[in-house]
């Protein structure tokens, strides 16, 4: 067994040395080296092909991995850009809204403070917004709250840094108003369904029609005169009843209000002309 063991080793060594010697004899140009080259050429060709195939397979795999990584990276980049695009769009919208608010603030003949809506209550029992201005900013109860389209309500509760704004469609809301065209006086009231109604005396409102603009009357010295509230959508004729009601389509979409102006000053001037015709 031992002889066999070392015999194998010696055989292998002899074969190797023989191969080396044959190849280099006569500086590799002799017949023996030619014979080795001739014998090994097909083997070399096969090996080269196999190696090339394996290399190509490996390169395909590494390429695929690289493409996969690149794909994941590009997807992440696309997602990041999409979010960035949305943010930019959002910023643009916000910018436009704030510009309109600022323009209105500059047009108004009274002091006003911009605020941001930070809370919303619209369950039906109460319809209100919470804004980030409170006692610390000089806000007091009954402060009128507007947006570039018109009136949205008044402050009913003041906290140190926030205020609660009662919306016009709150069931407890009542605002003195007039029909801009006929000057018919009445009260704008909210109800549980979220609808705003203009309540007026039947004898005064014969000429009130759909499309008439309702603005604040300025009576009671809470709201400046002329703040747009909405347009008459329909008249509920109660026949011989003392009061008639007009359903109002508000100029403001209360659900979409994000920034507001809190009117901290007062003015006897009619401000209706400072608002665009559509609020």
């Amino acid at each position, binding site marked *: 067994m031992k002889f*066999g*063991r070392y015999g*194998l*080793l010696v055989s*292998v*060594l002899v*074969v*190797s*040395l*023989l*191969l*080396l010697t044959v*190849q*280099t004899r006569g500086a590799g140009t002799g017949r023996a080296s030619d014979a*080795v080259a001739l014998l*090994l050429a097909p*083997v*070399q060709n096969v*090996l*080269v092909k*196999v*190696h090339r195939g*394996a*290399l190509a*397979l*490996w390169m395909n795999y*590494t390429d695929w991995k690289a493409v996969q990584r690149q794909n994941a990276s590009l997807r992440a980049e696309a997602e990041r850009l999409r979010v960035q695009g949305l943010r930019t769009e959002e910023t643009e919208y916000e910018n436009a809204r704030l510009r309109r608010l600022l323009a209105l603030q500059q047009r108004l003949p009274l002091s006003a403070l911009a605020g941001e809506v930070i809370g919303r209550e619209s369950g039906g029992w109460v319809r209100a917004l919470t804004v980030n201005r409170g006692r610390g900013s000089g806000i007091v109860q009954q402060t009128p709250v507007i947006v570039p389209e018109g009136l949205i309500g008044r402050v009913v509760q003041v906290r140190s840094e926030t205020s609660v704004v009662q919306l016009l469609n709150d069931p407890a809301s009542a605002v003195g108003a007039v029909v801009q065209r006929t000057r018919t006086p009445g009260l704008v009231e909210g109800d549980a369904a979220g609808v705003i109604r203009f309540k007026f005396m039947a004898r005064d409102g014969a000429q009130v029609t759909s499309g008439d603009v309702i603005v604040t009357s300025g009576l009671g010295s809470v709201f400046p005169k002329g703040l747009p509230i909405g347009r008459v959508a329909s008249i509920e004729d109660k026949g011989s009843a003392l009061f008639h009601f007009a359903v109002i389509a508000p100029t403001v979409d209360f659900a979409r209000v994000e920034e507001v102006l809190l009117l901290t000053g007062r003015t006897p001037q009619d401000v209706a002309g400072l608002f665009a015709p559509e609020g």
Partner: protein
Amino acid sequence: MKWLLLMTIGGSIAQSSLVPALSVSGVTPDLPLILTVLIALRRGPEIGCAAGFFAGLLQDIAGGGLIGAQALTKALAGFATGLLVGRLSVSNPLVQVPGLAILTIAEGLGRFLLLQFFHYPASLGGLMAHVVLPQALYNGFVGAASALIVAAADHARSRGWA
């Protein structure tokens, strides 16, 4: 015998396809040598010698150098490793890493000495510093990792998991 052929041929193919991807600063492990050692550790000097010869021969043919040089040195390496089984605690990674490193250096030295007969031009210092020693280190770690994987596979097989 079939698995032996598959391992040596596979090792040779992997050496020229997969191993370049494992290159660290131009240094690559010598996979056929590592396989020769693993085979010799499990099957003894004869099989180790044959595997080394075959793997080295394939490397020589594929590499386009002097055919027989690596066949001879790897056959010797396989034989020597096979003889060491039972004399050293070869399952210990603390033996495997330096063991494979020393074996790589010895194989490099042997190849260099052999090639001196055929007027190989490079200097021993340059070869050692840039090729043999870094590869020895790399082989040590790759070989130890491979030995651990083989041991884990054996363990799993003995427990009937695989």
